[in-house]
């Protein structure tokens, strides 16, 4: 498969696994945008990094890949970081007068 043969690339999009992957990525982006509409970027971004942990677990238990101690340490740190950020508020509180000033400017 290459760019020189665009027909094979288009056909690849309709392969069941790739189509499912594209559909799930679209679901991810829609959920990500919805989360950003009611939560801070500095809350959403570390929280979505938990996806890396889920990928590692899928790789270990579904694809039977081996995970080095270094990677287990990475998984532990991400989990710890996400638990830290999840304990706090998801949105920065803004005083009402400031918002009024911002909208009149």
């Amino acid at each position, binding site marked *: 498969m290459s760019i020189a043969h665009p027909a094979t690339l288009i056909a690849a999009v309709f392969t069941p696994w790739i189509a499912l992957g594209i559909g799930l990525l679209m679901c991810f982006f829609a959920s990500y*945008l*919805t989360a*950003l*509409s*009611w939560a*801070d*970027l*500095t*809350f*959403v*971004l*570390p929280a979505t*990094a938990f996806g*890396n*942990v889920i990928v*590692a677990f899928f790789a270990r238990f579904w694809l039977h890949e081996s995970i080095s101690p*270094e*990677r287990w*340490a*990475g*998984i*532990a*740190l*991400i*989990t*710890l*970081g*996400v638990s*830290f*950020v999840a*304990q*706090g*508020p998801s949105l*920065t*509180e803004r005083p009402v007068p400031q918002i009024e000033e911002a909208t009149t400017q």
Partner: protein
Amino acid sequence: MIGAAHVGVWSAAAMIACVVLCSTAGEVLTAAAMKSIGDLDEIRARSGFPGAVRAVVSCPLFFGGIGFLTLAFFSLLFALSHLNLSLVAPASASLTLVTNAVAGKIFLKENVDRRRWTAAVLVCIGVYLLAH
């Protein structure tokens, strides 16, 4: 060795910086767009899924964000064509978290308290270890 084609340290740093900066600009613009639109759940409850899609695609900031995220993707491909995956993937993924925390504080005026800084740094090291 940094890359397959013996790329200098400064060139490698510039390529990774380009990925990180474009990605950060894209994330910040997208977040600003979504904040300006308002709670999407409420919009969807009021005017349905097509109304929510209309609200998103009628926001110019959103397309600015998508533009920078696209640039980040292509600069990542460019970096991958010159540097090793084991350097580019962890470096760009982990640095983006820290630059986003800084950009969120400066441009989006988010309250990045000690808890969020700690989370950003822990996740940054974790992603580096996982992607390395």
